[in-house]
């Protein structure tokens, strides 16, 4: 398994857990309508996201290339996969955020305003979606560009 594949799997685990925790905090106990006024949930969510980022950067550090290593860690194929994953991630995140905005507008246009809690959701969800999409794209592209694990 390459370094990029290892990192992608660990990224899916870390941000998947954070996403589940965030969803539980955001949609529970009053949901998006009360989220914006609930300082406790806002702080808890911020702590959760902070833990997620910390875990992510610790993971990057632990999976770094060791000095003096002789084996190639990331070659041209890995760079090509990363480039395609970046492009795909950008498109996915843009489309999802766009559709979410359209959805919120449709749902709240009669009410006159969108609860501010949804803005928190959009911000955090876009970041998590970016990490998750990039990791998934990396794994799919690794599979699609050959090497099905056969020695």
């Amino acid at each position: 398994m390459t370094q990029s594949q290892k990192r992608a799997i660990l990224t899916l685990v870390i941000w998947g857990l954070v996403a589940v925790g965030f969803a539980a905090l955001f949609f529970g106990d009053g949901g998006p309508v009360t989220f914006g006024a609930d300082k406790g949930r806002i702080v808890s969510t911020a702590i959760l996201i902070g833990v997620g980022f910390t875990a992510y950067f610790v993971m990057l550090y632990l999976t770094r290339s060791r000095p003096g290593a002789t084996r190639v860690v990331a070659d041209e194929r890995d760079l090509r996969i990363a480039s395609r994953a970046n492009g795909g991630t950008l498109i996915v995140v843009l489309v999802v955020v766009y559709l979410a905005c359209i959805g919120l507008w449709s749902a709240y246009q009669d009410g006159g305003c969108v609860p501010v809690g949804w803005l928190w959701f959009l911000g955090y969800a876009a970041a998590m979606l970016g990490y998750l999409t990039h990791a998934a794209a990396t794994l799919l592209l690794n599979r699609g560009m050959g090497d099905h694990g056969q020695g």
Partner: protein
Amino acid sequence: MARAEISNQIRRLRFEHGEMTQQELAERAGCTRQTIGALEQGGYVPSLALAFRIARVFQVGVEDVFEFEE
């Protein structure tokens, strides 16, 4: 324009050169084992530089390793 395909003889050449493993070839060509695997399965087209490095490992020309088909 017809789609170009690039096939290769890497697997055969590996076995002809002392049953070289994918890892050994990867280390000598300066890439990962996964890239060698991807090349052999036809799932990846290498850059010119990598193609030359692989050919150099086998001490043959690039066209003896890779074949351009249309």
